[in-house]
Structure formats: C-alpha cells, structure tokens
C-alpha cells in the first residue's frame, strides 16, 4: 500500500465548451501528476492556468474530458459511481471561499455535524464529542458553535471549513486557494495550522496557491502550471533555488521580497503582455509568446517534460539535465 501514490493523474484533459459554441476552453490540457502519500504538494500558476480545475477534477467536482485520476490506486470515476460515501471518507476538499462553502442558515455546530450525519456517525452524544475534537484540532473555542458563518471572522470561517473537511478523517486533503481570502497575519495562522495538521494526522495535502512564498514555506513538492500544462515540477526547495523553466524564473522573480535591501539590488524579470487565451493556445511551447529566450524550435514544437539540474522536470527545449536557460 505504501508504494501506491496517494493521487495519480494520467493524461488528464478538461475542456469546457466555449460560450460561442465554437472550440473549447482547454482548462487542463494533458497533465500527468503523482502525489506520494504524506506529501504536501503545491500547485502554482497564474489565473487561467487550470490549477483550480485540476484540483476540482481530482476530487470529482469536475468531470474529466480525457484521462484518469487514481486515488490510492483506485479509479476515481469508478469509485465515485460505486461508493460515493467511502470516497468522501478518503478525499476531502477545502474551498477558496469559506463563507460560500457553508450554508448561511446553519450554525457552526450544524455545519460540522452534517458530514457526520451523512455518514451516520454514532449517536448524537458521540457526534458532539467528535465535534469538540475537531474544534480542538483547528484551535477554535467552543463558543463559536452556536454562531452563523456570517458572524465569524475570515480566519475562523476557514478553520471551520477545514474542521468540516477533517470530520470524516480523510487521508487526502485537496485545498483550492485556502488562503487567498484572508488577511496577512491570519494567513500565517492558517498556514501553520495546515503544517501542524499534516504532521499530526499524517495527511496528504494538495494545495492550489498563487502565493509562492507560502508554497515554499510549507510544500515538499511543487508543480508549476501554465495554460493547462505542467511547465515545471520538482521538490520545492531545489526548484525555487534554480528554476529551470523561464516561466518559473519569471514567476519567482515577480514576487517582491518584504526586505527592501533585497528589493533594492534585485534584478527583476518583467514579462511582456498577458497569458494567451486557454481556448487558443499558441503552437509550439505554450510560453513562447512571452518567453524572452525563445528560439525558433519553441514556436513549432511543443517541448516534453525532461529532467533538469534541480532533480525535477521542466518542459523547455533549452533545459535538460545538464543545463538550464537563464533569463
């Protein structure tokens, strides 16, 4: 069991029909991804790169157009069809907007009790005990139990939604930008909560994020997406130290440091223009329209993922295990 990946995504494509009815938005366009048990995996990229769609497809909130998702070696589509409940005890999802993901009519107690009721967990006394455990786990006081989601602060709401996701003791937690709705100092609290939960419960966590600093802080592995494809992936530390793909380099360079001394002397890579539309990706490498080091072959032939110096993989013609382009 231990050598079976927690999540394995094979040749995944998710296309949405265009509003005009012609063509399709290729939100996810051919992704292979393996998440080992116990990993803390970050998926980063800019809006429209398909990272949220990928996360939603992993948990079955979105149907795949092509390819398969295996959870612990089991086909997710089959599993959901045959036993939705046991699937939800294995994989849980944390939404970006904690307020929207909770019924505005239900108190915190009812919200936390709901998954237990759906899965017919114990008597009401046992459920009450489990809810108390969950509150402890996410460090919320029992006084929040009677309150409605609207009267909680942003950080408390996200804690409740994490507690709800943990109610069924899943082994895999997929989180879609769980921090972006929060204030800076609260964000740090929730980040620390995720790391301690992972240690305490041995969870496998996949987190979609656009805050690279936080990804480096907590994730063991990272996948960088661009226009529905993986542009680079690997262990977080080495990848952040020497990103091989020009896009990762630009993305990392774009994040300003909170230290003005670093900022003053830092060379910034400013990319030109916006990402192309995901319904009409450019031929060749998807990044070639904005890439400062693109060569002729980049405009014609799509690069495959290849091993690069930091030990991971990158989809760039100019990179291989011996060298990487530097922009």
């Amino acid at each position, binding site marked *: 069991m231990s050598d079976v990946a927690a999540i394995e995504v094979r040749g995944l494509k998710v296309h949405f029909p265009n509003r005009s009815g012609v063509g399709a938005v290729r939100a996810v366009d051919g992704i292979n991804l393996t998440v080992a048990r116990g990993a803390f995996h970050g998926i980063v990229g800019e809006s429209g790169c398909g990272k949220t769609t990928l996360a939603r497809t992993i948990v079955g909130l979105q149907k795949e157009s092509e390819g398969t998702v295996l959870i612990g070696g089991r086909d997710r589509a089959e599993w959901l069809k045959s036993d939705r409940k046991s699937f939800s005890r294995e994989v849980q999802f944390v939404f970006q907007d904690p307020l929207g993901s909770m019924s505005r009519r239900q108190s915190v107690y009812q919200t936390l009790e709901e998954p237990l009721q*759906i899965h017919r967990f114990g008597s009401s006394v046992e459920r009450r005990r489990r809810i108390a455990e969950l509150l402890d786990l996410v460090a919320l006081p029992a006084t929040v139990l009677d309150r409605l989601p609207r009267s909680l602060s942003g950080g408390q709401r996200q804690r409740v939604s994490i507690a709800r996701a943990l109610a069924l003791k899943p082994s895999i937690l997929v989180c879609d930008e769980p921090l972006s709705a929060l204030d800076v100092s609260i964000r740090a609290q929730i980040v620390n909560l995720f790391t301690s939960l992972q240690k305490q419960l041995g969870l496998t966590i996949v987190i979609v994020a656009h805050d690279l600093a936080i990804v480096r802080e907590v994730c063991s592995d990272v996948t960088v997406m661009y226009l529905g494809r993986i542009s680079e992936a690997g262990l977080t530390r080495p990848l952040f130290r020497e990103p091989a793909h020009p896009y990762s380099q630009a993305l990392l360079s774009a994040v300003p440091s909170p230290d003005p001394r670093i900022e003053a002397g830092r060379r910034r890579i400013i990319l030109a223009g916006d990402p192309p539309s995901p319904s009409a990706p450019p031929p060749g490498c998807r990044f070639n329209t904005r890439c400062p080091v693109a060569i002729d072959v980049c405009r014609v032939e799509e690069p495959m993922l290849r091993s690069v110096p930091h030990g991971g993989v990158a989809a760039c013609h100019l990179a291989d295990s011996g060298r990487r382009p530097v922009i």
Partner: protein
Amino acid sequence: MNISAIRDIKDWPWLVLLPVIGFVLIGIFAPAIMPYDPSAQDYSATLEGMSWNHWLGTDYLGRDVFSRIVGGARISLVAMVIVLVAALAIGVTIGSFAGYVGGRVELVLISIIDIALALPSLVIALALIGILGTGYWSMITALTLAWWANYARMSRAVVTAELQQPYIEAARVMGAGHLWIFVRHILPHVLALVVVYASADAGALVLAIATLSFLGLGVAPPTPEWGQMLVDGMSYIEEVPRLVVLPGLALTLVVVSFNLLGEAFALQKVPRPVRGATLRRRRKARAREEAERNAVETGTTSA
C-alpha cells in the same frame, strides 16, 4: 394608509391583522360559536331584523345570518387551506424537480408552468369546473390546478439559484446524496419564500372561492358560504341590504387583511439574494391593488 411608506416590520399596524386572526379562530371554532344550524330553515321567522334571538337577523328562508357568516368563515377557511396546501405541494414538487434535474425535463416543465401562468387563474378554474362539473370538490380541484403554477415557478427559481451556491458542492464532496442536499439545504429556502407568497395569496383565494360560489359554480346552496349568501341576498337588496352588506363586509375584511399580512411578510422575510425581489414586491403590490379592487367591486355588485 400609505402602505408603500412602511419599510420596517416594527412600524406595521398590527391591528389591521385582527380580521385574519378572527377569521382563523372563528373558522376553527365555528361549530361552538354558531347559535343555530346555519342551514336550518324557519319559515316562521323569515327576513327578521336584528334581535337577541338572531343577532344579525334571518334571511328569506329564516336561517340565522350570524350562524351563516360564521359557518361561511369555516367553509372558506377549510377550502382555502386545502387549496393552498395542495397547490403548494404540487407547485413546490414540480418546480423543485424541474430546477434540480435541469436539462430537457426542466424545459418541458417550464413550458407547462408558463402556459399555466399565462392564463388568469380564475379563467382556468372556470374552464376546469366546466369539465369537472360543479360542486365543492371540483371547485377545490379547479382552484388547486389554477394556483400551483406560481409556486412552481418560484420554487424552480430558488432551486436554480441555490444549486449554484458553493456550499451545495461542499455537501456533495462530503458524500451527500441528492435527497439529502434537497431536503437539508434547498427545501428550506424554497419553503421560506413560497410560504410567504402563499400567505399573501390566501386572501385572493378566499375571494376566488366566493366568486365561484357567487357564480353558482362552487359551494352548493344549502351550505353557508359568503359568495352564496351574496347571491341569495341580491333579491332582497332593496328591503334588507344587510343580507348583502354583511357577507360582503366579512369578505372584504378578510381579503384586505390577508393581503396586508402578505405585505408585512414580504417586507421582512423575502430573502434578498433571490433575484428581482423588488420587482416581485412591486408585482405583488399591483396584484394586491387588483384584489382590493375586486373586493370592492364584489361589494358594489351586491350593494
């Protein structure tokens, strides 16, 4: 009284709701209140004036007018409740089903609902009675079939809106089935809205029942019913106007106060996220004006 100027439930003149409360209480306890059998004829005491024996006098068959008005309240209340419950059940079921299932089924059901809505409910009721024949139960059936579509459309709208909320997805991720999601999350929203509108519709329904009976298509003669009483009183309008004025007054009071109740609910309760709440309130206000006008007209025909 300028109703549209009242914006807060606290400012509501609760006193005007007394007729609603009175109507419901009288309807429930009618058998205990009625001093006489409302259908019992007494040819020795026809068209008597008000007295200690007959508080509101008697009609041309010597039946006690007070008992008949109280009995009429019961008939109207019972009929109204049956029609509302049935129309709500049908409307909420069909509308919610359409909204939840979506796709082609929804399209077909929506078309049916729209057709039903396009025709005035009273016209539908008249046509159905034409097919079913007259009588209490065919009146109930006809009114139910004429009334459900409104609730169906509202239910569908609420279901469609709620289904798009992320917390529905959250429930699905937790492993909830369709029935769970519908009953636990969607139905409360549907009922909250629909029941408010039903309370406003109650007055219109009482009026419709009276109208049908007035036209001889509803409750059959010996049974005390306000519309029926209006017809009976018409022939004696010159000599004993009371026979027309009293049931007319009862009807008007009940209809107007039900509409005010609906308005009070609408001010407080109509959930904001549902689209076009203001629009619907305006439409409702127009409907209320129309109902009031009808009530007055019914009164004038008889007065």
